[in-house]
């Protein structure tokens, strides 16, 4: 059986790789991809907590399931906004957005 600490170390590393990408990248889509990495790290934590510490209940599993659904909706809206930004500013870098209203 895999000790629970392995999952936590893995998800902490994945989380901070995502944070590093979010800080250093300046492309809108690359930042969104980093956010997806962070969300996945949190999902691993939910599932591992539920399975290894409380194997009889299913709360963490459903939290992960709903988190997957929410992140799908979030990325759809974010992609729509990015396409609109690119259409208006002709650039996909965050530094190009100076006004919210064009």
């Amino acid at each position: 059986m895999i000790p629970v600490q392995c999952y936590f170390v893995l998800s902490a590393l994945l989380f901070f790789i995502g944070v590093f990408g979010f800080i250093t990248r300046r492309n809108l889509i690359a930042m969104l991809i980093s956010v997806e990495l962070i969300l996945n790290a949190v999902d691993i934590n939910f599932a591992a907590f539920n399975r290894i510490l409380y194997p009889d209940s299913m709360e963490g599993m459903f939290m992960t399931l709903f988190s997957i659904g929410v992140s799908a909706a979030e990325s759809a809206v974010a992609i729509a906004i990015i396409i609109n930004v690119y259409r208006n500013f002709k650039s996909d870098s965050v530094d190009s957005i100076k006004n919210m209203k064009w």
Partner: protein
Amino acid sequence: MANMIMFCILAVVILGSAIMCVTTTRIMRAATFMLFVLFGVAGLYFLLDYTYLGAAQISVYAGGVTMIYVFAIQLVSKRTLQGLTERMKGSRVVWGGLLTLVGCATVILVLLKNQFLMSGLTTPDVEVPMKSVGEALVGSGKYQYVLAFEFISLFLLACIIGGLVVSRKEEEK
């Protein structure tokens, strides 16, 4: 033991792909490496015997979200396939790396010092039966989630309509 070996392989795949994903300058490659990360996380769910969760991860994340990303990259920039590259400032990488290392060390220390985690049970390697998953998902009793399920479906619908409204072309006046 076999589980441990599988976990090590998955961990190497996830962490390697994630590092490549945030350090590569080409956006298309970043999306491809994100796909590998998502498959690795789905493998972790299968390893935890959450088969339904792994299937949902593959079909929603790896199938749906990644497709949205690839379409967006193709729509946003014609130059992407020839390698849309992005400058990375040295100072920002240094500061970001420093902040990341400090945060990561803090979190891992707190997690490993926590005695609460040591009480982990040895779980039997049994799959969570699909019947109990389905009953908990659409039941309305205690510890059942039909309200959250319906809310998520309404939320998805609202987000898709919102995405369409935001991304439609404005008519010329």
